[in-house]
């Protein structure tokens, strides 16, 4: 069995242990509900001016585009419920957006806050993002859950959801929860 063929096949140097904390732990500083003020607005002592964006959270926005199809885009799925959530440390979700798809499987473009968190070692003031959960539900289809999807500032992230019709009867369907894992470049974003 080939394990480490550096010459051609196996990129062993990319195999490093990820931070073994859970994604939520790593992002815990960002877990607040949008109804609350972001940490930025906590009172700050009057200190001399500092270089911008080193310790201060930064608030920006990015877009989420969602289209709902079935059969590899052959058909739109109308009347699907599209919900976007923030999630806190315990995993509890807070709904922040809710839309229903039109006859062409479309919902309006969703604008979401993107917050730079200076206490998160995965983020730099230059390159940061905020994670959300997305759920798409439609009658007679399996529900699709997207966990930890990433929204970057001034960038549109597009989800073209391909729904699968639910089997009739008690058949258990395939798993339709997609967890967006950390990116290989995250750990070194400093």
């Amino acid at each position, binding site marked *: *069995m080939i394990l480490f063929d550096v010459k*051609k*096949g*196996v*990129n*062993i*140097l*990319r*195999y490093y242990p990820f931070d073994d904390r859970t994604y939520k732990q790593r992002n815990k500083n960002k877990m607040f509900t949008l109804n609350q003020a972001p940490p930025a607005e906590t009172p700050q002592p009057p200190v001399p001016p500092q270089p911008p964006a080193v310790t201060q959270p930064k608030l920006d926005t990015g877009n*989420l*585009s969602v*289209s709902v199809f*079935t*059969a*590899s*885009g*052959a*058909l*739109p799925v109308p009347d699907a419920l599209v919900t976007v959530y923030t999630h806190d440390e315990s995993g509890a979700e807070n709904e922040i957006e809710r839309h229903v798809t*039109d*006859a*062409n*499987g*479309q919902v309006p473009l969703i604008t979401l806050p993107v917050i730079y968190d200076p206490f998160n070692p995965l983020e730099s003031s*230059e*390159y940061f*993002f905020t994670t959300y959960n997305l759920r798409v539900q439609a009658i*007679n*289809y399996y529900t*699709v859950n*997207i966990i930890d*999807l*990433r929204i*970057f*500032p*001034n*960038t*549109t*992230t*597009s989800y*073209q959801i*391909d729904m*699968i*019709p639910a*089997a*009739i009867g008690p*058949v*258990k*369907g*395939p798993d339709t929860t*997609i967890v*967006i*894992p950390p*990116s*290989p*470049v995250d*750990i*070194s*974003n*400093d």
Partner: protein
Amino acid sequence: MSIGIPGLTEVVIPDSITVHLGAPDQPAENITVPFLDYIKNVASSEIYPTWPESALRANIYAITSIALNRVFTEWYRSQGYNFDITSDTRFDQAFVNNRGIFDNVSALVDEIFDSYIVRQGQIEPLYAQFCDGRVSQCPGLLQWGTVELAKEGLTPYEMLQYYYGANINIQTDTPVAAAFETYPGINLKPGDNNIYILLMQIYLNTIANNYPAITRIPNPTGTFDETTQAAVSQFQRIFNLPVTGIIDKATWYRIRRIYVAVTSLAGLTSQGVVLSEIPQYTPTPGPEEVVPRVQAVQYFLNVLSAYYNGIPSVDINGVLDTRTRTAIMEFQRIFNLPITGLVDEQTWYTMYDAVSGILRTLPPSAIALPAILWPGITYQLGSEGPGVYFIQQYLSYIASVLEGIPPAAPDGIYGPETERAVRTFQEYFGIDVTGVVDRYTWGRIVLIYRNLRFGNTGNIGGLQ
């Protein structure tokens, strides 16, 4: 069945690529996705969309080169695996099935997906190794390093030379392996008139069957008129392409792909298998034994393959061959059944219920009518019944695609409107204009319907 794996002398962009969602030796799902989508997915998984554009481009060249290298050298297939590449970053590059794609990354990939890195004097796409460059180092491109180099003003080519050596080229405009019309190389835009536009108009009209927002083009003549522009813009809006109203490379391939999805779904549902006719559980016959009921399983697998990209389509030949067994095993894997490749009772009922669930969701517009033989009745003004209903359905569809034929509302009654539609049809296709549907006219209506519905576009010119 080959997916267009090139020979050893020419590099081509494959239509699709099969990704193993795990390490090579670990059992995992194999999913087949369009090559373009694969590159967009990897790029969205590996890099940040907020990096400088030239850094994104350099990374996309490397990602594409690795994928093409794996396909061209048959790296995994030559070792006996039935996939082209894995999603495990220890072996290949990151891929997250069904993830979201960043719009700016998507636009860049649409532009350069047919370009790759090659050593001068060689044919083989470079195995363009890369790693993040901060935590891990490697003899290749450093992902974070490209961000720094971009800030210093290096071009993507200069960055690639920096990492892979000066003796590389970027090979552009690689041929796309496909059994269909490839992009003509120029944008199609308002005012143009050519055969490619005619093709796109017919495709868009077919897609419009399922997407009400897309304007029907009543007069597909090959002229890029305002209606065509409106239809293209709507298509771009729905499928998340830049809304330009012009058919560029990205729009061309997306129209083509959605058209294939629409027609293959319609084709499946027209194969004449009605669910109630399918027998109850049937034991699996021995290999190579032709049993009509195996055809039902194969039909089921084909319906499922339109929805699950892990299930391959199969030939409906009534033989439990290797490909059919593989498809059955993929089905069993997805539905957490014992993976036997045999259709036991549990597999049969699970498959039956899954297909029933799919058929329940299909709207009538997505279903294509089968080619029904002439029922032996001459239909004329005053006729009623199912035969009239089918004539009206066929003609309504034909009217939606071809200019000048008035629509006939399907109500099963052969009234003046239906007669007018029949007369126009006969005139259009050089048949004696009688307003009566006899055996010959019936046959022509069915033929034209099927040609238009299933996109046998080779005949379109000859029809007019």
